[in-house]
């Protein structure tokens, strides 16, 4: 390609080129920073630190926990996604909301709640006389992380279920397959992209988790990394550990890319698309309700109840309304724009990957995930160096914080959009172009409405994550900026749970509200779409 042609492409396709450049730049900056810091290390010491039995044990622990949580989240998410989309169960919308809300619970709050419930002196023992060992170690981390991350998988699967083309199932049934075999042979394989993108987020979340593993006392890479930063004030060896974590992430991304290759799930026949029929469960519906209630009870009501108990137990007089209000405003004013920005950045990245699959578009898509896997503390330090060097006026502004959130959490936004794009038939867009629309026009009028549901899920993910974020906020927020999460963590860390409770409850409440609004929008987008199709 000549230089002039490249310039032409950039001018014509600015709406793809600019976001992609931002994404790639935003991920490369931390990577370059980590490499620079790592190369400052003394090679001999570094070698001793990296090559020792403990590194191998950390690797084993980290991989073991990741695999365990992937299984755990699948067991929770798949039935729940099916129940809320393919059955006539009452209150499906409420169940969906409850299935998303665990994302509003900070990991350490989930861990504290589980630890307060179990053990000789735990709530279970005191109320029901049921003594189970106090949760800790692998089992504790596994339960806490499965409960707090399954929504990533649940929402991806749900989007996929809603977009399934029923004609395939009907054909299989017409050819004499029973319901169960149709599910295993026809439905499950079509859920693979959703499984992969949801599972990827779960895996990356486990790799980066600090809150849960530190409280459950289970040694993983990110825990060791945190100790390195905190214990020895050492940015250099910490950078080396961060790079090791990124290599591990790279391996997972390669694996996912291999599994995803050559998938195509949009409808190919002509005629109108429909939504699949819903099963009536008969007496089995009670099992469905019981399962959903159990999951919601453990993942939402237990932590919310524990926090409520902290608040009731506190002798602190009254609620700190002024501080709550200020913290709420700060949290929302950073998280909401970040959610929108992340979704806007994710759209072209996912679009390139799905519609123009080539080696380099795949690389761009994977690069977005590396940002998510970069330890937030390293990410924040890199942005300090970058912003002070390149755009000093932006340092410690809200704009930089929003940008940091969006770049760091963008991986969460790519998956849902990608799943939706896989199901949007490209020939519709081609038809629009043949009728004289520009590429951008065709996309906006034809494909965009079909991926809107995915975009809403993307925004929900990023918003919920940003509301809980700590290290980026600590280091990049404008001075004096106080989010709900900063307050919750600060009080909980000093064992002042009574004072932490109002902030934690506000995070959960506002997140529930935000997700609720998004789900309402989803309903609004469903109806006109079905009307158009009819």
């Amino acid at each position, binding site marked *: 390609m000549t230089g002039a042609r490249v310039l032409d492409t950039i001018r014509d396709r600015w709406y793809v080129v600019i976001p992609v450049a931002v994404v790639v730049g935003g991920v490369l900056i931390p990577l370059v920073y980590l490499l620079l810091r790592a190369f400052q290390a003394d090679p001999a010491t570094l070698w001793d630190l990296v090559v020792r039995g403990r590194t191998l044990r950390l690797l084993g622990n980290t991989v073991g926990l990741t695999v365990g949580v992937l299984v755990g989240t699948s067991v929770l998410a798949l039935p729940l996604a099916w129940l809320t989309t393919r059955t006539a169960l009452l209150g499906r919308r409420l169940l969906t909301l409850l299935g998303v809300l665990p994302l509003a619970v900070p990991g350490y709050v989930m861990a504290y709640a589980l630890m307060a419930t179990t053990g000789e002196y735990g709530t279970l023992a005191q109320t029901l006389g049921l003594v189970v060992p106090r949760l800790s170690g692998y089992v504790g981390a596994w339960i806490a992380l499965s409960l707090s991350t399954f929504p990533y998988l649940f929402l991806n699967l749900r989007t996929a279920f809603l977009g399934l083309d029923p004609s395939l199932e009907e054909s299989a049934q017409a050819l004499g397959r029973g319901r169960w075999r149709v599910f295993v042979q026809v439905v499950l394989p079509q859920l693979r992209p959703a499984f992969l993108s949801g599972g990827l987020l779960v895996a990356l979340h486990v790799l980066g988790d600090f809150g849960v593993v530190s409280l459950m006392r289970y040694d993983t890479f990110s825990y060791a990394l945190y100790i390195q930063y905190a214990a020895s004030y050492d940015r250099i060896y910490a950078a080396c550990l961060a790079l090791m974590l990124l290599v591990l992430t790279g391996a997972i991304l390669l694996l996912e890319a291999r599994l995803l290759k050559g998938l195509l799930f949009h409808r190919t026949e002509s005629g109108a698309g429909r939504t699949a029929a819903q099963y009536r469960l008969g007496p089995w519906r009670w099992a469905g309700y019981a399962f959903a209630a159990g999951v919601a009870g453990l993942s939402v009501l237990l932590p919310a109840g524990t926090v409520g108990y902290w608040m009731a137990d506190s002798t602190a007089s009254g609620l700190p309304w002024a501080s709550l209000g200020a913290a709420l405003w700060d949290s929302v004013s950073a998280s909401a724009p970040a959610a929108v920005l992340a979704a806007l950045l994710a759209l072209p990245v996912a679009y390139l990957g799905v519609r123009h699959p080539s080696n380099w578009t795949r690389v761009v898509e994977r690069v977005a995930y590396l940002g998510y896997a970069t330890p937030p503390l390293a990410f924040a330090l890199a942005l300090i160096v970058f912003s002070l060097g390149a755009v000093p006026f932006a340092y410690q502004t809200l704009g930089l914080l929003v940008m940091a959130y969006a770049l760091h959490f963008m991986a969460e936004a790519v998956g849902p959009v990608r799943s939706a794009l896989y199901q949007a038939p490209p020939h519709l867009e081609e038809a629009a172009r043949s009728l004289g629309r520009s590429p951008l026009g065709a996309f906006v009028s034809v494909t965009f409405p079909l991926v809107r549901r995915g975009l809403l899920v993307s925004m929900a993910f990023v918003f919920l994550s940003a509301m809980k974020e700590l290290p980026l906020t600590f280091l990049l927020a404008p001075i004096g900026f106080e989010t709900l999460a900063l307050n919750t963590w600060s009080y909980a*860390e000093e064992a002042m749970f009574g004072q932490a409770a109002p902030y934690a409850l506000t995070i959960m409440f506002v997140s529930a509200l935000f997700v609720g609004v998004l789900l309402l929008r989803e309903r609004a987008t469903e109806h006109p779409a079905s009307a158009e199709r009819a």
Partner: protein
Amino acid sequence: MTRLFSLSLIATLVLSLLGCGGEQQDELVIYSGRSKALVDPLLEQYEGEVNVEVRYGSDAELLAALQEEGDQSPADVFWANTTGALGNAVNNDLLTELPDELMEQSARFAPTNQRWLPVTTRFRVLAYNSDTVSPEDLPDSVLDLPEHEEFEGRIGWTPAYSSFQDFVTALRVTEGEETARTWLTDMQALNPNSYSSNTPMIQALDAGEIDVGLTNHYYVLRLRYGDAKVDDEGSIDPEASVATHPFQEEDIGNLALVTGAGVLQTSDQSEAAREFLRFLMSDEAQSFAAETLNEYPLRPGAEVPEYMMPVDEALALSPDFDFERLQEMDPTLDLLRDVGAL
């Protein structure tokens, strides 16, 4: 409706990207490793008089940020939880020398380089569950703790936490490398539970997961007396079955750990910054530290609540130790890694 929704979102986005940044010239910027939960009420009092902005974080996060910011740092004061962090800031030449007049206000632990001011102190203790353990059964010296095999699997410690590492450094410096290594190895043989920080450890102690734990004194007091501020111990009903056991006088297990603050080289308001340090040594701030945080004030003559051990007694328990040597962290970390505690 949709359009309105999208427009308002985009407007918010643009506004926030333009940002409300920019530090005002006259405000004092404090980087505080001391958590907001602890010091916010005190700073609110001070904010009434001076225009103050605070960035909270852990000591390590703020130190890393200060180093990456370099000359462009907006910070004026570094207020830290640990001597180690302050020593690290001195080594990296981040702090300016303080005038004698200021250093004299806190002579007890003052560093000879005069780069930071000691503000309060805390003490290492052995905490125990008072339902399951009787204080007579506990050792006189922390060095004898590994002999108590009855605590196998029932001891808590925090190898990744700065105050525990400070204790190990002091142990290494005063008793020698070999004694420290033996102590750590023998402790490891008792299969202790490692907690990420003191709060979850004290919770575990109260929940009966462990019987004893090596911690700092104020965590126990805060859990035991909670928010109830009562002058007379007789009338306090402890909220938790956790108590502290001091070792014998001058035992390394009673080590004093000093918090402090310094003025940064990058400060464009060094007079205001020194004024803030003076405020930290004021009656108001020192009694806040004692009554609300249950830490020991360093201003001579300051009082502590009745349920705390009196200042002189507590100081007498602590060993005489050149605590500038707490900066020698690297051999400690190597040791902890060698014995498999980190």
